[in-house]
């Protein structure tokens, strides 16, 4: 047990070193940051514009009002982009680490290789989006007249963390295919398209897709269920209850898949 704690401390120390180093070198690439952050904020604006235009034609979508939709978008957005800050780097595993041989270097160190991939880059250009989505939550919540109590806040906090792990697990699962295909770029492209599903109540989709959204691409746990619970919407009660706990489970599954990929990499040496 003591050894495990010692190892954890070591990982924390190393991550911290990586982090400040990253921050220092970050100052060199200021333009990239500004451009990247701006592009992403613009895409968020376009997304909101779409919603606004749609709601010039209707009053509610599947029983969700405009502000409730904003809340949903904001919640899911906060979860995914907060996760991006720390876990996004995995999507480059094919192009950056496997093809260029850096993965070999990671395997030579007495350190978990997945940890090294995550630690290697912090995607802080997502921070503006996290802030914007949080603002959306507060704005929408205020418009709806939400009065947060302790239960709601606790639930929100836990389900956000769980949601982050869920999102991380999706990225990890899809990116790990790079061990077989040599590229993670395509799997990631699919995730980006799929992640748009998080902005809508899942009961607008056919059952088969709803099934997908709680298993292979469990985005429902990152946005719809928690938002639905907080807003007091009816339906999916059991799902909403387990939401704060599913994160670690999904991440564990994705992690096993990653290890499978890693052992395949070690035997084929691609």
């Amino acid at each position: 047990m003591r050894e495990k704690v010692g190892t954890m401390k070591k990982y924390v120390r190393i991550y911290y070193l990586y982090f400040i180093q990253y921050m220092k070198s970050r100052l060199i690439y200021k333009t990239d940051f500004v451009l990247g952050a701006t592009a992403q904020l613009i895409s968020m604006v376009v997304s909101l514009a779409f919603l606004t235009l749609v709601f010039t034609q209707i009053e509610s979508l599947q029983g969700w009002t405009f502000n409730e939709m904003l809340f949903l978008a904001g919640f899911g957005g906060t979860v995914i982009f907060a996760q991006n800050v720390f876990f996004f780097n995995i999507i480059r595993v094919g192009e950056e680490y496997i093809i260029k041989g850096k993965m070999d270097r990671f395997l030579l160190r007495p350190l978990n290789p997945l940890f090294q991939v995550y630690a290697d880059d912090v995607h802080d250009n997502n921070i503006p989006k996290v802030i914007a989505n949080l603002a959306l939550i507060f704005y929408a919540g205020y418009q709806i007249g939400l009065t947060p109590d302790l239960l709601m806040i606790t639930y929100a906090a836990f389900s956000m963390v769980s949601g982050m792990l869920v999102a991380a697990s999706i990225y990890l699962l899809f990116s790990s295919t790079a061990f077989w295909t040599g590229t993670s770029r395509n799997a990631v492209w699919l995730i980006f398209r799929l992640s748009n599903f998080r902005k809508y109540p899942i009961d607008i989709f056919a059952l088969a897709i709803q099934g997908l959204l709680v298993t292979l691409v469990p985005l429902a746990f990152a946005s719809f269920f928690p938002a639905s619970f907080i807003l007091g919407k009816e339906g999916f009660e059991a799902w909403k209850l387990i939401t704060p706990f599913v994160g670690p489970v999904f991440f564990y599954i994705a992690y096993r898949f990653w290890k499978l990929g890693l052992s395949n990499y070690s035997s084929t040496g691609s």
Partner: protein
Amino acid sequence: MSLIKAENLDKTFRIYSQGSGIKGYLKSFVKRDYEEIHAVEGLELEIDEGEMIGYIGSNGAGKSTTVKMLTGILEPSSGLIEVDGRNPHRERKKNAVNIGVVFGQKTQLWWDLPVKESFKLLKEIYEVDEEAYDERIEEFDEVLQISEFWEQPVRKLSLGQKMRCELAAAFLHHPKIVYLDEPTIGLDVAVKERIRDFIRKMNEEKNITVMLTTHDIGDIEDLCERIVVLDEGKKIYDGALDDLVNRFSSRRLVMEIKRPEDFDIDIDGVTEVKRTDGGLEVVFDRTEISASDLMREILDDYEVLDFQIKEPDIEEVVKKVYNEGI
């Protein structure tokens, strides 16, 4: 008890082919052809602690594959492999603490960070304590002189500077074994010497086992007494460098003479006479005739304008060993 042991080690790869032309492209969408490559076959290897061996062979001979298996990156197809009593692939992390690796061009330093920050990270990762760390950096600095660019980001260093850092980084945690893959490639003579001095020092003073893969015959002559030769995945020689060179070396006399078309000699020890663009190449076995004797005979009969004696390169020795076997 050997530190590194490999018994009947095998590694086979599948290479898939792409297909050419429109038909080939379309076909490869459905099913791809592959061929099997035996990168390493039946390798037997034993290395004791404190040894420094040269591991040589032409490109594609299986050297990096062997090193990748010994360092745990690659899993063998079959056979036994043991490093310090452990299977390096299965106990990857525990094995990793004991080893240092320099992989030619692939760096272990952080590209955008100053050298000293890279070392700080490595210190943390390999759990080197403060005192030992300071001592060793100073020690390394004496031979490698890395303090000159300590504060500079790695990407701004010249090849020679980077390589010196790589070596320091590999030895920082005083691992039991260090694997060096082409550590002197592309460097000038002065830097090469400094690097060789450093490696020798580490091996002799700290008893660190070194496995050196290189094409540079200077490296080998300077550092290794024992060499292992690999060709097409199989070990074809394992022993002292001197023996190998003595047994399989031939020297070449390259010269320009006044009337090359008249050249015709019959001297014992000359194995071949080649005609080249510039002149003539006389291949001879120096155990049968010395260079000076040969020259004397030729000078007697012909007008020599220019000449040069060429030493055999490793590739030639390897090729020769392969062709003639052991």
